[in-house]
C-alpha cells in the first residue's frame, strides 16, 4: 500500500508518501519537521536529543505507514510516534529515574496549615491568556523548567490526555506515584505561570 486510505476519504496528500516519490517525501518531511521538533523539545531540554527523537520518529512513520488506519488524523498518529520515540530516548538516558526537587514552586502554608496565597483581583481564562502573544513561550519555558520526572507525567496526562493508569503503565511507576508527580507538576506550573496570569487579570 503506497498511500493511506481512510474511510472518511482523507485527501491523499495527507498520507505518508511512497519511498519512490522523492519530491513528495521532501515536502512531507519539511511540512512536519517543525512541529515534531517543537513537541520533542517539550520532552527533552537537549536540542540534539530532540532532533534524534524526530529522526527516529520519521523512520518509524515511514516504516509503519501501512499501519495508519485513518481512525485519527495523520498528525495525531504521528504525534503518538514522536512521543514514543522521545520517551524511548529519555529512558535510554535513565533521566526518568532522576528525582529533582521542585519544592521551591510548591504552594505555601502557615503554621496553622492555612494557605498563603496572594489575593487575586481577577483570573484570566486560558483563551484570554493565549491572546497575549508571549504566553505560549512562557508556557513552553515553564514546562522546560520542570524536572523530567514531573514534566513527562504532565505532558502524557494533561497534554496527550492519557489516563492516570495508562501513564503508570507507560512509565512503569505506581498510580499513586503518577498522581503525586502530576499534582506537583501542575502546582509548579501554576506558580511559574502566575506572573503572566496576574498580568492577564489586570487587562
Amino acid at each position: 500500500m503506497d498511500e493511506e486510505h481512510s474511510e472518511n476519504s482523507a485527501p491523499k496528500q495527507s498520507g505518508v508518501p511512497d519511498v519512490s516519490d522523492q519530491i513528495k517525501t521532501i515536502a512531507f518531511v519539511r511540512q512536519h519537521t517543525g512541529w515534531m521538533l517543537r513537541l520533542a523539545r517539550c520532552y527533552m531540554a537537549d536540542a540534539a536529543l530532540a532532533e534524534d527523537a524526530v529522526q527516529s520518529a520519521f523512520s518509524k512513520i515511514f516504516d509503519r505507514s501501512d499501519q495508519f488506519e485513518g481512525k485519527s488524523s495523520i498528525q495525531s498518529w504521528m504525534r503518538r510516534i514522536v512521543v514514543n520515540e522521545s520517551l524511548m530516548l529519555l529512558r535510554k538516558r535513565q533521566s526518568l529515574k532522576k528525582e529533582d526537587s521542585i519544592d521551591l514552586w510548591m504552594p505555601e502554608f502557615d503554621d496553622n496549615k492555612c494557605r498563603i496565597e496572594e489575593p487575586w483581583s481577577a483570573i484570566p481564562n486560558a483563551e484570554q491568556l493565549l491572546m497575549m502573544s508571549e504566553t505560549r513561550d512562557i508556557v513552553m519555558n515553564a514546562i522546560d523548567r520542570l524536572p523530567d520526572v514531573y514534566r513527562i507525567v504532565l505532558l502524557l496526562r494533561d497534554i496527550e490526555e492519557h489516563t492516570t493508569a495508562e501513564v503508570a503503565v507507560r512509565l512503569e511507576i505506581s498510580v499513586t506515584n503518577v498522581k503525586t508527580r502530576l499534582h506537583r507538576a501542575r502546582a509548579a506550573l501554576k506558580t511559574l505561570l502566575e506572573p503572566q496570569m496576574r498580568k492577564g487579570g489586570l487587562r
Partner: protein
Amino acid sequence: MAKTPWKRRIKGMMFKMPLMITCEVFEDFIIEYLESELTDRQQRLFEFHLNICRECREYLAAYKIGMETAKQSLSNEAIQLPVEVPEDLVAAVIASRNDR
C-alpha cells in the same frame, strides 16, 4: 518572622472544627477531586472548604487555568505554527529514508 494575619489565624482555628479540613488537607485532595475519586464524605468536606476559603478557591482556579493553558499551547493546531525548519535535520531524515 512576620505575624500571621488575624484573618488567617481565625481560619486556622475554624478549620480545626468538626466537618472542616485544613488548606493542607484540601491540597492533598485536589488531584483526586479532579479525577472524581474522592469518597462522598471527602467530596463534601472538600466542597465545603472550597466555599468558605477564598485562598483555596483562587488557588484551585489558577491551578486549573495553568493546566488548560498548557494543553491549549500544545494542541495539534497550536504546534503547527510556522517555524524555521532545520535543514540539516531534513537532509538527515531524507538521507536515512533513501538508504532503506
